[in-house]
């Protein structure tokens, strides 16, 4: 599925390079960057549209967490599946969704992934393996285990990745899901995106252990902690866990330490984080900047090439918004569509 990166051409000893540069082709590495930009620009674009009243409801932005979404999805193939969260735009794009249809969904249009019925909190693209964001914290955890059960029973070879937040780790669903995945040795990877807070409540105030991954021992599964803002580290942990799952050796819990730049949602007074803390993450630990710096350092791309990627992403975003705007609104007659597959 993957080859060796062109990084070889670089002076650096190949074997000393971080994981992804050994594991992936240049195109794949640049595509990962492109998607990370796409995630960020998508969310910035959505935020702008929201401010301008083009999108209603609420949304949860993952700006700052792009390496986690992207790194986890790098080792996955299209057939592999994910369950996502309320903060799920990044997962959706990383897994392969088209921002056109995502914008359309946010605009409530028929061309949206959910035909305008779901919005941000239920964004999904089943064709690329995303079984859906979830408005319920922890809601996706047992669902992912069920998807992994299908993979095992029907021998599809699929691996399921279950994204969830640090806040979700205190839900009963977390406990029940991880336990079942472990006793049945299911091909599922649990990915905790620990951004330090569940809404306003820090993990220190909500969670009786220092690291969510420390809880892996309670389910006899490996618990791995990575810097969630370093793409290669995330991808490597994901790679190992996915391989393990694919081999039939069961689940892994990966904890990506990361940070969200924005408030929890559109209604956050931000009384629980200091400006210093936010600035520190934005300035010194930005996942995109760090990845770009490596790509240049390792001679994989020039800054002109990176600029070109950013430009093309911007065009894709603009086109996506245009598509969404131009798409038709659902008709009121369709209110009851898809409550059932077969009407009774």
């Amino acid at each position, binding site marked *: 599925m993957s080859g060796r990166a062109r990084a070889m051409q670089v002076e650096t000893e190949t074997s000393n390079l971080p994981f992804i540069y050994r594991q992936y082709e240049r195109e794949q590495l640049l595509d990962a960057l492109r998607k990370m930009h796409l995630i960020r620009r998508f969310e910035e674009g959505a935020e702008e549209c929201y401010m301008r009243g083009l999108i209603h409801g609420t949304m949860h932005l993952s700006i700052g967490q792009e390496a986690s979404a992207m790194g986890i999805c790098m080792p996955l193939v299209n057939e592999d599946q994910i369950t996502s969260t309320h903060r799920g735009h990044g997962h959706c794009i990383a897994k392969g969704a088209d921002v056109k249809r995502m914008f359309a969904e946010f605009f409530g249009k028929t061309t949206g992934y959910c035909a305008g019925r779901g919005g941000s909190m239920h964004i999904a693209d089943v064709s690329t393996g995303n079984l859906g964001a979830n408005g319920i914290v922890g809601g996706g955890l047992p669902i992912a285990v*069920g998807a992994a059960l299908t993979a095992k029973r029907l021998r599809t070879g699929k691996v399921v990745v279950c994204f969830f937040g640090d806040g979700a780790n205190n839900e009963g669903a977390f406990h029940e899901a991880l336990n079942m995945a472990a006793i049945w040795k299911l091909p599922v990877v649990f990915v905790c995106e620990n951004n330090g807070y569940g809404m306003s409540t820090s993990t220190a105030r909500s969670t009786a252990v220092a690291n969510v991954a420390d809880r892996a021992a309670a389910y006899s599964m490996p618990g791995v902690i990575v810097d969630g803002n370093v793409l290669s580290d995330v991808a490597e942990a994901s790679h190992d866990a996915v391989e393990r799952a694919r081999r039939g050796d069961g689940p892994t819990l990966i904890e990506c330490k990361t940070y969200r730049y924005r408030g929890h949602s559109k209604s956050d007074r931000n009384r629980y984080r200091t400006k210093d803390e936010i600035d520190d993450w934005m300035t010194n630990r930005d996942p995109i900047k760090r990845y770009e710096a490596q790509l240049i350092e390792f001679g994989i791309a020039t800054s002109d090439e990176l600029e070109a990627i950013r430009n093309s992403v911007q065009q894709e975003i603009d086109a996506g918004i245009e598509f969404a705007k131009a798409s038709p609104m659902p008709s009121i007659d369709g209110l009851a569509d898809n*409550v059932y597959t077969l009407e009774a």
Partner: protein
Amino acid sequence: MNAPVREISYSQAIQEAMAIAMESDERVILMGEDIGVYGGAFQVTGDLIDRFGPDRVMDTPISELGGAGVAVGAAVTGLRPIFEFQFSDFAALAMEQIVNQAAKMRYMLGGAVSVPLVMRFPAGSGTGAAAQHSQSLEAWLGHVPGLKVIQPATPHDVKGMLLAAVADPDPVMIFEHKLLYKMKGPVPEGHYTVPLNKAEVRREGHDVSIVATSIMVHKALEAAEVLAGEGVSAEVIDLRSIRPIDQETVIASVKKTSRLICVYEGVKTLGVGAEISAMIAESEAFDYLDAPILRLGGSETPIPYNPELEKAAVPQVPEIVDAARGLVRGVR
């Protein structure tokens, strides 16, 4: 329906339906607590594990929310789980996955997925198991769009409706009254289905319509027999499905009899009978009504342990007889 018909029990009928479904479709699996070697709390799965093995008759840990969620995830991705709750009361632990996920996933995703899931809920009082093991909670799920909710009252129906449920692409919730499990009745061999959305007239009559659910169908039939002896002709309708409700059948009956009594075991207030009554009160049948619509439902109490109190907490035959007689004779 040319298949031979035998008398088997309600629980055997369920077991037979599950076996048929599993034999014809390897995607069908059973999940639940102690449904394997134990055979299920009410011995409904019995020895199916010997036939289908532990991979298809899966004991879950005691994790109702997670277990239900696993079933949802499995259903969305290609399996066809039949999930057993040990007692319907434990639905309270899994409402999140049933209601927020299973019932809404297709809708929220604009039709991109289906959730072909069957859940079975042993329900009702009469076993001395007290307040946390005796509830009739079908009204909760009947209130939830996206679910289909049924209450088969006979061995014949439970087999046919379960087979219809397994074949259905949407989540179907089956409430099985525990006191029915041992009841025997004629059941055809082999595969057949009973529609999930049709009530059934169990006894024709012209003085009063009694719409009943689950075990109350049998009490209503007993009451109708007594009433017949008194010259009152009661029509008894087995509602069978509470989402959707077969309005047509109920409306037609009320237009004929001009009187309606709803009999159900769930708590009276906001129970199934509230919906039947309201549905009739707003329908064309309203103009045919000669009397108030009566409801006999469960008492406004938890189910008590003491057996006499327990009986007093749900409608019994004499009360149905009294209510019908009073309604027909105009004694209120």
